[in-house]
């Protein structure tokens, strides 16, 4: 169960989202679950992994983002509900 903790980090721009997604996946044992962009350009990165790794990765990403003033919000969900992923995926093009 602990392997599927969910970390969410929301940034100001697509480029900074790419940057921290790359760094987080590179440095910690987490996998990129999803990336979503809102209509004003806010980009949200979802990562999955063990709870400790996710927490560390989100802290690192948030620190990296605040240096550039691009952080909007961050959160960690330890045991996400199964139906939650339907909301995250949204409408996918098949």
């Amino acid at each position: 169960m602990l392997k599927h903790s969910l970390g969410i980090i929301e940034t100001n721009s697509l480029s900074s989202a790419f940057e921290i997604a790359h760094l987080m996946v590179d440095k910690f044992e987490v996998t990129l679950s999803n990336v979503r962009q809102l209509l004003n350009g806010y980009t949200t990165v979802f990562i999955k992994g063990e709870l400790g790794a996710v927490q560390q990765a989100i802290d690192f990403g948030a620190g990296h983002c605040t240096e550039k003033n691009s952080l909007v919000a961050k959160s960690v969900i330890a045991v996400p509900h199964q139906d939650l992923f339907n909301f995250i995926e949204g409408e996918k093009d098949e």
Partner: protein
Amino acid sequence: MNNSLALLEVNGFCASISAVDALLKNSSVEIDLEEIKNGNVLLKLKGNIPQIKYALNLAIESINKISSVVNFTVLENLNPSIEKEFFNKTKKHRPVINKPEIKSEEKLITPQKEELPEKKSEKVKVKKVKNTAVKKLSKPKEEIQSSETSDINLSTIERLRLEALGKKIAAEKKTEASKPKAVSSYVVKKLSDLDGLNVHKLRRVARDFEEFPIKGRQISIANRDELMVYFKQILPE
């Protein structure tokens, strides 16, 4: 009476997802999530009034930890017509195209092609290789036979023949079972039945006719007018 709706506008996707998680775990309201153009996310909660008020407090609490709530309202005793407009409108139903019928035809053709060379190769091997090798070959097939026939005295070649025949019969059954389905979808006995059909359906109907003048690739090349000329030759008006 699940006819009340709460609208909750949240700043950012991250906060909305964590709120949805809290609601899924702790409340029993229906949830819908929609992006609005200025980068806010609209959460819609549906249920009866006490459920919704509890859920709203829960959601606002969890959102304020992360981000901020822009606005929220509760609409009580919603008219069903408005309900349809607002709730679950984001899930678009994509039009389903009638492709599965074509797929079923393709699947029918391919397995027959694959099975035939296997049978031939098996027979050739049996003729060439000596008894020891034949036993090895027949071992896995004995398991199938034990369920079907209990005759142990049959020679291996006869067994193989029976198997091959059995496979053929099974394949024929498949084709027999599938053809009527294809025909039943477009029952064409007169020329007037063809009026509503487009070119693809016309071609499919043409393939189902045994006495159709042209066949195979020619049908797939022919356009609507050509096909109609051929249909006029065959069908009564």
